């Protein structure tokens, strides 16, 4: 651990830029979710405002080009695939059964392109809305891929953010999707990953953010969705997950983990109750998760990775503690619903082409 009193900005930024250069073969499991990992790296550089410093104009241009190459159309619609891990060397952009867009990758790719300040002129918005329709299941949930795969609240959240980014909800049967979210509510006050599941920090964030993102429908308004005894129970459970260590656990009676500081803390912020977090002890916990050579780990003494690094910085940006004159902790404002800095969110709003009227 470095000096736990300061935020080791340089170390965290280099950890992320090193990952963008390449990952060791031991990381092969992230290949089928590579854009998500890239999002954590670019997001870290975005929060730390180091993207311009750590990359050249040419890098950024070729990265954008790489991203657009992952946007792929198929009879199921258009979306981003995780990487070229299934793309044959001689490919000519032709679709195949196994080469389709993936909801999590589509969401994170849109944010990455906003971080890279792309103009989105290549975006196939109609195709993306079509992909959402292809992924929605009879129970209202979404699969990650139009050809199947697991469906749970993570995919619901991605479908909702994509609709919100495109400012068009016609790709979703909203009432149906909202009913699915309700079914994931647990007696503890958090949401499980899928119906009947144990209350879990990550998917509680997905549920709360989705409920906050969705526009009013004739049978469901934002105000009534996040209200009443269920809301009070959710707040109680989230607050209770802040453990003696200062960090949040993802489930009752589990140990704290840096990622749950984000999932639980950001869910509270969305509910308008971010103030209820003890941000001083939260910051102390995260400060102690810093790895001496850069990056942030899930718990003190563990190895860092882009996921925990990004989410730790993101919650520090959402719930800043008072650090007096210490400027190292000063971070830009973050939009807790999209999980992007306000500047990047602003860029997305301004540059993702508007719905054709």
């Amino acid at each position, binding site marked *: 651990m470095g000096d736990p009193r300061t935020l080791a900005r340089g170390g965290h930024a280099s950890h992320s830029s090193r*990952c*963008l*250069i*390449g*990952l*060791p*073969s031991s*990381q*092969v*499991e*992230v*290949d*089928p979710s*590579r854009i998500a990992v*890239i999002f954590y*790296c670019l997001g870290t550089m975005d929060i730390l405002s180091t993207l311009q410093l750590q990359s050249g104009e040419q890098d950024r241009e*070729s*990265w954008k*080009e*790489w*991203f657009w*190459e992952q946007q792929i159309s198929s009879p199921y619609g258009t979306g981003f695939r995780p990487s*070229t*891990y*299934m*793309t*044959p*060397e*001689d*490919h000519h952009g032709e679709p*195949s059964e*196994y080469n389709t867009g993936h909801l999590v990758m589509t969401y994170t790719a849109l944010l990455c392109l906003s971080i890279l300040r792309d103009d989105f002129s290549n975006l196939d918005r109609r195709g993306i809305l079509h992909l959402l329709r292809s992924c929605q299941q009879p129970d209202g949930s979404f699969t990650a891929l139009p*050809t199947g*795969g*697991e469906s749970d609240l993570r995919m619901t959240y991605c479908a909702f953010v994509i609709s919100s980014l495109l400012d068009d909800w016609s790709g979703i049967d909203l009432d149906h999707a909202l009913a699915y979210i309700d079914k994931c509510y*647990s*007696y*503890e006050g958090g949401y*499980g*990953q*899928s119906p*009947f*599941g*144990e*209350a*879990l920090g990550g998917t509680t964030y997905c549920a709360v953010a989705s409920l906050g993102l969705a526009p009013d429908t004739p049978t469901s308004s934002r105000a009534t969705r996040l209200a009443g005894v269920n809301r009070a*129970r959710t707040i109680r*459970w989230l*607050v*209770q997950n*802040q453990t*003696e260590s*200062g960090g949040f656990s993802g*489930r*009752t*009676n*589990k140990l704290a983990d840096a990622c749950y500081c984000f999932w639980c803390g950001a869910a509270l912020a969305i509910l308008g109750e971010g*103030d*209820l977090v*003890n941000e001083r002890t939260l910051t102390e916990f995260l400060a102690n998760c810093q790895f001496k050579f850069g990056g942030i780990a899930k718990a003190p003494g563990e190895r860092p990775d882009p996921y925990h690094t990004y989410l730790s910085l993101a919650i520090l940006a959402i719930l800043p503690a008072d650090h007096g004159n210490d400027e190292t902790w000063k971070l830009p404002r973050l939009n807790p619903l999209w999980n992007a800095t306000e500047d990047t969110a602003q860029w997305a709003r301004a540059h993702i082409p508007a719905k054709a009227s």
Partner: protein
Amino acid sequence: MSDLLADDSEWADVVPIRQYENVNPIAPIFYSEEYKDATDYFRGVVKTGEMSPRVLKLTERVIRMNPAHYTAWQHRYKTVMALQVSLEDELELMDEIATMFLKTYQVWHHRRLILTALNSVDAAARELVFLKTVLENDSKNYHTWSYRQWILVHFNDEERLWAGERPYVEELLEEDVRNNSAWHHRFFVVFSSGVRAGDEDREQTLRRELSFAKEKIALAPNNLSAWNYLRGALEHTHTPFTTVTAFVEPYTASEPPATDVVDLDNPLPSAGAQLPCVAALEFLADIYEEEGGEKTAKAVEIWKLLANEKDTMRKKYWEHRIRDALQKA
């Protein structure tokens, strides 16, 4: 290690296809030779649409190196179905793979697909036994629990599947009374998944569950899982919190009561218990808030105690409760 498929005559007729890479890929992975070799041949068989016994071997090879390779899983499932290979054999292989890669989504998804295709309660019952061995090593594994809950709902057989669940949870809680996954599972079995055989008398079921939770609280008073279960059972059945006031009160005192009287409905904290118990104070305040009127002041008093002394970590939350209650009053 040089057992590359490129050197294997069995694969001589397949044209391996390398992975496409842009001139400047972002976060590329420096694959091992074995992985490159296997995925080159995998892209090759996907291109020709081959589904054969050797494709099963190949997808297994890829999956063992990268269990998150969802395309290998998709193609494997298609091949298993097309060849009509024994699904039991497939499950047996999956037992080993699941144990190795417990935290990979795809492992469990594939299992669901196989069980759905098998469509047999016998197989589902065997799954519950297998899952028990998995949970022995990782008693809170989220994927394993989700899958267990799916098996129960999907095959929905009272006698052969559901009947063993409550005793199983009790076994797990004997080992670790703080295992929230086990508590959650109990709630799922008793309340949220429907009415189990023998549980038709809901009042009696509730009484049994309240006794169970109280007993476990008496054993370890500062166990949030048990308190959350108690709350959940009351709220789910629309039973006022005031019905358990007599049970909760002794846990809010600084010392265990000096009495030999045993009240089976209201087990007392054990002699060495750390008191007062924060969860009990919170509960009592909720009882007072529920009663309202003059009792609100008593709730506020408890919240102040929690904020300033007993649970200072959550000071702002307890102050929020005070504001909220006074606003409503």
